[in-house]
């Protein structure tokens, strides 16, 4: 083979193999094109979505929580600005130097500095780090003035729930706190996962949480791979929380809290007799809800939790106590309605009454002598009501009590209300598996034994007595655009003359010399109250003790003293306010609770009178102002010579 042939052969081989190689390359490039097509056409939608997910970060905007106002528009729960000083470390340069300088304006503890350093370590350089929260005004202005020398430092304005009335409304309003696991479970509201978001934790804040909370807005932000915000793409503002107006009167509430705080522990409720709107509801001792909104410390919380006077419990709705003699109106009314007795029914009180082998005592050891119904109420004669009870039986009494709101939750819009208890033979059989003793009817007739009620229930009972209507208590007067209170209530269905007899008895208590509440009557003409006292025993008085002389309340330890109660309404001629006062272990109702009830009812009416006189003046001025303007639709300006 010649060199030329060899060369030609080699070149043919080269050409062949070049073609093969070219073919392989072509196939490979086709694979690239196919892949490109697959990614950019076939899978394009999916990847476009993923790219948008990468790029766009949704941030929630927490809506401002709805305000809570009293019936006159006084703010009870508001959002206050909460200033904190924050640092963006990437702009700070020398972080330690900046911290030292900030520390001169706002004291930073060593623990603060440790936390700050840790936060800086953990966060991206562009994330604001909180240096100190809850700055005072002085601190805010000090930092503001020095901002030019503090690169990276700024003042951040947050919101914190504030309760201007503090303790006085703690039980009604509740407070806000961070949602716990139970709150979050099964709830889809994205706001709950927002750091720093607070929800209602008690009282009205919890009851109307959904309305107060509002709905989340959101911002669409473009972010880069490390989460830095590049720009805002869109913003959708949420729905701010709804303003909630309560039936409460803040001034009255404040007064009630002050007045009741004179005693160690108790509760008081004032209801509008006609509408059922709760004008005031307080429980003492109380706590400062602002502490909770800011985040209460462990020790402070434990102290509240372990206090014997139970400051965390709203005794007005969750405290169940024997109503004592305030229950006698129910017994009286049940007796009258039964037709078995009438108002003229007379009983001789010798100080006690025998039933079977038991002797039932009247609170007055010497007895009251002969009593009719009005007199029995006025003097709170136990023996008279033993007699009634014996005649009509427990079922009638229980039925009447239930019609007046006792023995079951009245349904006020507050969490934690308790039902109390109105016992009857069937209840005892099914619950305690024991037969009802006739003597228990006697005990129940004066609100002792198994009978339990809450101060709220007693106020409702009083309001229903005073109005003759099945008044339903409520707290919400209006919730912005969603709810208006109901103010018309059906008649309770008791014969007016029977009701009148009972009310006459209550009038006697307060306004007739010798009545158990006479000392605590209202002497301002036209504002008189009618009421009923009650002192509920919390321990059994043994025979031995009775014979050796009953110890006085003042000699007993606090926990063993009687509960003092007083229910009343005013003014007596045209009832407007019903009030129930309960003083835990306060001793005698007439001596301890009645003055408080009197003061509260007087304050109600005085406040009304003051408002009325203030309202008179602008009303007098209004017509003069509106006269020159003619009809509102007229837009022609008033000419000079007119």
């Amino acid at each position, binding site marked *: 083979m010649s060199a030329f042939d060899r060369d030609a052969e080699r070149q043919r081989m*080269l050409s062949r193999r070049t073609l093969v190689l070219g073919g392989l390359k072509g196939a490979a490039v086709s694979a690239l094109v196919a892949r490109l097509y697959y*990614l950019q056409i076939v899978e*394009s939608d*999916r*990847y476009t979505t*993923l790219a948008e997910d*990468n790029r766009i970060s949704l941030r929630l905007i927490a809506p401002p929580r709805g305000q809570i106002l009293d019936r006159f528009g006084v703010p009870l729960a508001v959002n206050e600005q909460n200033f904190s000083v924050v640092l963006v470390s990437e702009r700070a340069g020398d972080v330690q130097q900046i911290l030292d300088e900030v520390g001169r304006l706002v004291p930073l503890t060593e623990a603060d500095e440790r936390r700050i350093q840790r936060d800086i370590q953990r966060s991206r350089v562009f994330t604001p780090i909180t240096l100190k929260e809850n700055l005072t005004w002085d601190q805010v202005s000090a930092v503001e003035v020095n901002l030019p020398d503090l690169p990276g430092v700024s003042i951040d304005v947050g919101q914190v729930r504030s309760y201007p009335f503090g303790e006085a409304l703690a039980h009604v309003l509740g407070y806000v706190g961070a949602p716990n696991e139970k709150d979050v479970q099964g709830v889809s509201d994205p706001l709950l996962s927002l750091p720093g978001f607070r929800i209602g934790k008690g009282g009205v804040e919890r009851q109307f949480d959904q309305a107060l909370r509002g709905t989340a807005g959101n911002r669409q932000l473009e972010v880069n791979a490390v989460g830095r915000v590049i720009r805002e793409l869109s913003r959708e503002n949420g729905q701010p929380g709804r303003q909630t107006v309560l039936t409460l009167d803040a001034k009255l509430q404040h007064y009630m809290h002050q007045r009741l705080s004179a005693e160690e522990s108790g509760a008081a409720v004032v209801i509008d007799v006609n509408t059922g709107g709760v004008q005031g509801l307080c429980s003492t001792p109380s706590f400062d809800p602002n502490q909770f909104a800011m985040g209460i410390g462990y020790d402070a919380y434990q102290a509240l939790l372990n206090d014997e006077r139970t400051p965390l419990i709203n005794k007005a709705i969750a405290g169940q106590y024997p109503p004592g003699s305030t229950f006698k109106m129910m017994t009286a009314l049940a007796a009258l309605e039964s037709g078995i007795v009438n108002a003229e029914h007379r009983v001789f009180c010798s100080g006690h009454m025998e039933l079977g082998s038991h002797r039932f005592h009247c609170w007055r050891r010497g007895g009251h002598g002969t009593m009719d119904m009005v007199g029995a109420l006025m003097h709170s004669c136990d023996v008279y009501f033993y007699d009634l009870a014996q005649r009509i039986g427990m079922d009638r009494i229980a039925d009447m009590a239930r019609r007046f709101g006792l023995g079951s939750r009245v349904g006020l819009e507050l969490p934690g209300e308790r039902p109390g208890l109105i016992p009857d033979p069937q209840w005892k059989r099914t619950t305690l598996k024991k037969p009802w003793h006739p003597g228990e009817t006697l005990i129940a007739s004066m609100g002792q034994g198994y009978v339990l009620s809450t101060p709220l229930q007693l106020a409702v009972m009083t309001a229903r007595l005073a109005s003759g209507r099945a008044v339903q208590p409520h707290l919400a007067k209006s919730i912005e655009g969603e709810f208006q209170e109901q103010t018309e209530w059906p008649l309770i269905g008791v014969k007016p003359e029977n009701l009148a007899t009972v009310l006459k008895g209550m009038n006697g208590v307060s306004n007739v010399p010798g009545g158990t509440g006479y000392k605590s009557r209202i002497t301002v003409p036209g504002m008189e109250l009618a009421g009923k006292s009650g002192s509920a025993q919390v321990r059994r008085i043994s025979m031995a003790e009775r014979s050796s002389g009953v110890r006085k309340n003042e000699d007993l330890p606090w926990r063993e003293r009687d509960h003092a109660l007083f229910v009343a309404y005013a003014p007596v001629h045209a009832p407007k306010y019903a009030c129930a006062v309960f003083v835990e272990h306060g001793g005698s109702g007439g001596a301890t609770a009645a003055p408080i009830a009197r003061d509260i009812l007087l304050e109600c009416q005085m406040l009304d009178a003051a408002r009325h006189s203030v309202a008179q003046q602008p009303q007098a001025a209004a017509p003069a102002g509106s006269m020159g303007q003619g009809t509102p639709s007229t837009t022609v300006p008033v000419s000079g010579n007119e």
Partner: protein
Amino acid sequence: MMSLDISADNGTMTIGEKLGQISWSLIFLITLVASIGFAMLYSAANGNIDPWASRQMMRFGVGLAMMIVIALVDIRVWMKLSYPLYGIVLVLLIGVDLFGNVGKGAQRWIDLGFVQLQPSEMMKVTLVMVLARYFHGATLEDTGRIPFLFVPLALVVAPVGLVLAQPNLGTSLMLILASGSMFFLSGVRLWKFGLVIGAVLIAVPLSWQFLLHDYQRDRVETFLDPDSDPLGTGYHITQSKIAFGSGGLTGKGFLQGTQSHLNFLPEKQTDFIFTMLAEEFGLVGGLVFLFLYCLLLLYGFVIASRCRHQYGRLLVLGLTVNLFLYLFINVAMIMGLIPVVGVPLPLISYGGTATLAVMVGFGLILSAHVHRDVRMSRRGLGDL
């Protein structure tokens, strides 16, 4: 006598004639492709010419000058220099293995103060040169003899071993594939390739166990299941695929790529620059770019076929294979077709040595074109 023949129509061309012979259309095409690269680097810097585009343009200018100078030098000079250049680069490779700077988990650079030298990139050119030189005089009988293949095998194994030791899987792979093509083009029998491939198949599990570094093993494993490690190595490929896919048919527009500009795309100025191009210009832009690159490859084939000496043909085809390998490995990698191997896209990706090496390669291709008709002896070195 033969030497006389050669001298008959050898390097008698003047510089002017040579300039006339240079394929200016190829240079235009190269410049066009490089300009696309400048535009992408401009976009990668969020619409800034600094820091990447400007420096890349400078390098390209230097490269262009080098390319033309190389093109004007007689191909026989390059043939003559094949062994010495190979030897120098091999020494440099040993140098980086011993003293090289550490970058990206691999020893690759020699810092000469003014430029960081990447001998492995230069080896891609010199290995093709030296193999073309070796096979230049080989008849098919020669290549049929196994002992004849020992020398070129040694020429391949030495640099591949050194590059693997750096460790640089991508470049080793390219060296092996390019050399393999050279063996193939030179007429080495297919069954011998079969033998080698069989041996590799046996060696792979062993090297997996004993030779590969952890990060290399990770890369292969991530390739096999990219979702297993979405925020680690697989994150890059996942984000790259998202960028491709979200580009769609026509792309998001110049400077509008979100994946790249918001930094979801890693290394967008180097290995992932084609991703960025496809995100901003879509399938249309990607295809146009691939077409231009394929035109470059086609130029290689045409020039090789018009070459009248084996050295030139082998050299041009080898360099073309190199270019193709850059393109394929890079693009297939960023589209998730093959494991992540750090191979840039020459002329487009930001980076000095790869661009320079490719332009030196084009210089040689152009030289082979200008001197396509020179006569060379079978033994190689005719006089000039």
